[in-house]
């Protein structure tokens, strides 16, 4: 069975993640704010000003990150474009809804409705590339990006595809921030200890070929919607790959308190902030750590062979992704 390699990456986040070496000196967010914007690329280097005006952050960031990941991978001709997004283009949804309410359902312009569909980013990427290949979008809260990655992984494993662009994108919008804060799902005045949020777009090019530029191998990926026993989940996942927890060098997670047999653990959310597809940042970080054989400041790295990514969410969804040095 073919192996699956990450051969191109690009990540737009609250960190300077477009700069490959910046991750070593990354600083954790201080979480005093409710929302942290991304460190933006120069959008006009990639998108026409007229289009920039019409695009929400998800589409803008998705367009740029996908272009950069493809460039990084040497611009292969794609067999598939697969995206994951938890809330989709929520800004456009809010705009269209506001229009409905304010104008009493009259004289509405369709632009924000059109752009609010979850597969807008994937569609815009295909349009820009003239790519008629398989195009899929997943929206399952924190399993959105894992689903996209899983689809790609499966296609390569069964020999269906050889060059796949996978990405996770999310954005926030004012009313959604306010509403989530009302119920303490994210930080607010009433819930100061709830997570601070951010946004981002992380894109990867997956191929069965190991290359000079390969970052890491995705050795396995598994999703569950519910489990009483995450430890059992991780043991059985690793066992299916003929491994145990002893074979894992670092655990990357979105959980703030995780202690699995004293394993070295890094909570990537302290850098990325929280959003449904923040696992994209975690994967980006792990891929670069394995390639460069170093970790962000404050984390000791002797030898880095295997990084296991584990995410879980109170709404549902547990995911394990194993990345191996290649």
């Amino acid at each position, binding site marked *: 069975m073919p192996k699956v390699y990450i051969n191109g990456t690009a990540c737009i986040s609250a960190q300077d993640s477009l700069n490959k070496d910046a991750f070593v000196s990354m600083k954790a967010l201080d979480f005093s704010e409710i929302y942290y914007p991304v460190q933006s690329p120069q959008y006009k280097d990639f998108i026409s000003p007229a289009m920039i005006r019409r695009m929400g952050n998800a589409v803008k960031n998705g367009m740029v990150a996908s272009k950069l990941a493809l460039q990084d991978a040497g611009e292969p001709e794609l067999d598939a*474009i697969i995206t994951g997004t*938890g*809330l*989709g283009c929520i800004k456009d*949804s*809010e705009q*269209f*809804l*506001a229009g*409905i*309410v304010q104008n*009493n*359902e009259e004289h*509405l312009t*369709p632009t924000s*409705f*059109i752009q*609010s*569909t*979850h*597969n*807008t980013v994937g*569609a*815009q990427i*295909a*349009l820009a*590339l003239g*790519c*008629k*290949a*398989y*195009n*899929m*979008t*997943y*929206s*399952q*809260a924190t*399993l959105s990006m894992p*689903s996209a990655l899983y*689809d790609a992984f*499966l296609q390569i*494993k*069964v020999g269906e595809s050889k060059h796949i662009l996978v990405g996770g994108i999310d954005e926030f919008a004012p*009313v959604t921030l*306010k*509403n*989530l804060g*009302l*119920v303490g*799902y994210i930080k607010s005045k009433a819930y100061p200890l709830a997570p601070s949020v951010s946004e981002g777009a992380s894109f990867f090019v997956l191929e069965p070929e190991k290359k000079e530029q390969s970052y890491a191998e995705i050795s396995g990926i598994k*999703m*569950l*919607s*519910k*489990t009483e026993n995450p430890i059992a989940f991780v043991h059985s996942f690793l066992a299916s790959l003929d491994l145990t927890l002893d074979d894992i060098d670092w655990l990357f997670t979105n959980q703030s308190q995780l202690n699995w047999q004293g394993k070295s653990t890094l909570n990537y959310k302290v850098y990325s902030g929280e959003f*449904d597809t923040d696992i994209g940042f975690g994967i980006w970080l792990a891929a670069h750590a394995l390639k460069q054989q170093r970790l962000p400041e404050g984390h000791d790295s002797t030898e880095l062979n295997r990084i296991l990514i584990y995410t879980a969410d109170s*709404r*549902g*969804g547990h995911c394990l992704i194993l990345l191996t040095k290649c």
Partner: protein
Amino acid sequence: MKVGITGMGIISAIGNNVNENLQALLEAKSGISTIEHISTLHKDAIKVGEIKYSNEELIELLNLNPESNYTRTSLLGIWAAREAVAQAGIKIDSRTGFISATSVGGMDRSENYFFDYEALPEKQKYILSHDAGDVSFKIANDLGVSDFVTTISTACSSGANAIMLGARMILAGELDTVIVGGTDALSKFTINGFKSLMILSDTENTPFDQNRKGLNLGEGAAYLVLESAKRTLDKNVLGYVEGWGNANDAYHQTASSETGEGAALAMKKAIQGAGISPREIDYVNAHGTATVNNDLSEGRALLEVFSQQVPSFSSTKPFTGHTLAAAGAIEAVYSLLALREKVQFPNLNFSSPMEEFSLLPLTQLRKFANRYVLSNSFGFGGNCSSLIFSSVYA
């Protein structure tokens, strides 16, 4: 023979279960009407395929907790998924997954309170049921599925895409049983969205008609149960998912290319994957939304794929309306019924053929022992999907 189907479930404007839907299809009884359950300015300017139960009635009939935050989309989904699972007689285990599709998600509830939550504490429970993922978690939890759960959201091709992923996972041995399909409820958001695009008709939709004026929105849900070869051994198989294809038109965010390139690619992929030749397709359940753009584009694609010899075809959207993410799944159920009942359903409301080509949809129910049925679903973002179902006798 690829992936066996052992159960199906459905709720739509023409019936609350598979049998009711079948009766309506056989009797040419459309479910298009005037909207009752949503107060919208456009009430009298549109026609819809509405399910006449209120949310409260659905909650009661489903025996669910009214204090919880069930959105209409998830209620319809639970309804249909339960029927499919009951028919398949499966035991949910760790080799069972759930793949759903939606475009509305929980917007049917949140659109009512979105800007007013602060003043409505008792409605705040709908804040966390807004996203697409919540719908699928609610349905999965109701069924008892705790393994692989995901949602596809690619607008009007979503339901077909969910079936496609499920079939692939069964073939790859990743799951032995998977419940696949989609659900979408009517909402002010989509009504106004399609209205602003000026593609809603004020009369009953007329697919492939020269004078077609646009679509009627519909709501509904449908699910199939797909199972691996070892699990279908001693079961009553309804039919097989024989081929599938997804391609992107890459032409425009909402409009389809004039040549229907994406549609043609998707159909060809499905036919190739099924290992058959185009002339073995006996019947096509078309996407046929009755928009000026879709029917032209799809018509051209059909002519290209079938080298001008297009098989019997019809759109069933005059029965149900366009149910968005549920469409691919609802129409999959209708394709299976066409196979099982040995019929081909009519394209209601048709009177004048389109000028651009000579394509005549079926206008009456036709008895035919179909071996292969092709079903099309094309969504915004150029997302084109085709599925081929085969009869157990094929």
